[in-house]
């Protein structure tokens, strides 16, 4: 079974500007793959190349085993796309929007009608199917976009900032539907700025910065790999007494005050926890709170992108 997406040396220039610089990555079938990066890093340009909106300047990619340059129509036949701006046809009804995308993908009539009804029901828009898309709010338009993307029964779903600016209900609904479909085998390529979303939804992430991939791994591995950013959080009943001596503990590289206690940065949080317990015992201090922390994905992101 081929990888869902394979990208080799994908490059795109706009005049003298190198927007995407020889990017390589692989998305396995059935993954939720997060694509993270600051503004202008090359995320959208990469997605636009993969989805056939613009051509690469160099390199190539395969979608479902089909080369995006040699077999563009076949590679796009596997895709469902939900862009950040819900670019629905405002003068068509919800139903016409969904049927239009299904027809462009050649979905047979009985199947597109059945799926269209089911999807509208699933996103809570069934009663508004005859309304023009113009009357929908941003959140509801995004739900409609999800219907137009899923009615084609895609193998791979591209989500570009799908929950940006949405209310909690719409965000949760979209996350729930995406997770459910992923459990059924759908591959998801998620572009997002929302680190919480990436951390909790994605099975693997790639971080792109200045057009180049700087890290690709599971969120857990990326967090663990940043040993220098791991820390121990400790709160004493009488913190002022402990203040001058904590930095002298073995394995501690830095101490900062936080939340009424201290953060002890270390590459060996388990050992330092033992040292802290001994220290407290020796000083006659009572430990009110003690735990080890790994950096969040947001901290990993900041570390890699410098932003």
């Amino acid at each position, binding site marked *: 079974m081929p990888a869902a997406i394979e990208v080799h040396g994908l490059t795109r220039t706009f005049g003298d500007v190198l927007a995407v610089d020889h990017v390589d990555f692989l998305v396995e079938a059935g993954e939720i793959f997060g694509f993270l990066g600051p503004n202008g890093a090359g995320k959208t340009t990469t997605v636009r190349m993969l989805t056939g909106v613009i051509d690469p300047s160099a390199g190539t990619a395969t979608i479902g085993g089909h080369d995006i340059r040699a077999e563009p*129509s*076949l590679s*796009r036949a596997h895709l469902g796309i939900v862009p950040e701006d819900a*670019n629905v046809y*405002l*003068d068509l009804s919800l139903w016409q929007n969904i049927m239009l995308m299904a*027809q462009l993908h*050649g979905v047979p009539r009985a199947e597109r009608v059945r799926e269209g009804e089911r999807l509208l029901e699933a996103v809570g828009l069934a009663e508004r199917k005859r309304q023009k898309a113009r009357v929908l709010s941003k959140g509801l338009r995004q739900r409609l976009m999800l219907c137009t993307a899923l009615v084609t029964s895609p193998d791979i779903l591209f989500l570009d900032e799908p929950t940006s600016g949405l209310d909690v209900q719409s965000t949760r609904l979209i996350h729930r539907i995406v997770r459910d479909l992923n459990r059924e085998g759908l591959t998801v390529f998620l572009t997002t700025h929302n680190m919480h979303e990436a951390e909790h939804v994605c099975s693997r992430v790639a971080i792109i910065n200045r057009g180049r991939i700087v890290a690709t791994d599971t969120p857990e591995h990326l967090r663990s790999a940043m040993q220098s950013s791991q820390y121990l959080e400790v709160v004493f009943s009488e913190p002022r007494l402990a203040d001058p001596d904590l930095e002298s503990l073995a394995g501690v590289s830095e101490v900062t005050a936080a939340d009424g206690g201290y953060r002890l940065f270390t590459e060996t949080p388990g050992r330092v926890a033992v040292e802290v317990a001994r220290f407290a015992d020796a000083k006659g201090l009572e430990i009110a709170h003690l735990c080890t922390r790994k950096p969040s994905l947001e901290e990993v992101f900041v570390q890699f992108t410098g932003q």
Partner: protein
Amino acid sequence: MTTHAEPAQTWRRQVHGACVIVRKNALLYYLKPPVLIFGVLFPVFFFLAFKMGRPISAEDMVPGMVAMALWFTASAVGPLVTPWERRARTYERLISSPVSLTAILAGDVISGMIFGAGLSVVALLLALTLTNASIASPALLLAGILLGALSFASLGVLLAAPPASSPSNIMLLSNLVRLPLLFVSGIFVPIHRMPVWARWIAPISPLSYTVALIRSAFGQPAYFPTWLSLPMLVAFTAVLMWAARAFHRLWRARGL
């Protein structure tokens, strides 16, 4: 799906995709104000401006009027669709679907052709009802309307290729091309009576050959013979379609 079945299946899918585009365009754009203004009102006012106060029989004007209606209507849809969709960003949805750019453009051309041919038939029926004009060759008239509509619609799609921040900029560009050609194509003044420079330009306008075909269909003398007009309209359609595809691909490749 076998490897050998793919090309045929892809080809059928593209034809189907073009038909979906035609339906979408009819639903969304046939009644848009710019199409109605530049496609329907323009030829009506041009006709009135030319006819009023001039000693020309209505029957003599019918072929030119039908050709002019065809010219404006068939070339009105193309310049609207792509700029409108680029601004609404729905264009990206189309080009990221499995339907190829060629099929999308073919759908746009057919949309313009149907719109133009349909409205020019209305103009034709009005003319036949209100004047004593009669058709000498229905086949020639049908060929003139269909081939003319096809080439004019292709011109409209070509004019839609440059990226523009607003559809009105493209409508402006299309009128800069359509209006001068209107005056050198033998609608208002027969080509043999025009100045030499205009007689040089007339052959590079598809409207000239359409006017000639429609005049012949009404039994009137035509500047270009039928044996030349028919292949010239086919050639214009092919060249304009090829150019439209090349320029749309160029701008798409540049990400515009």
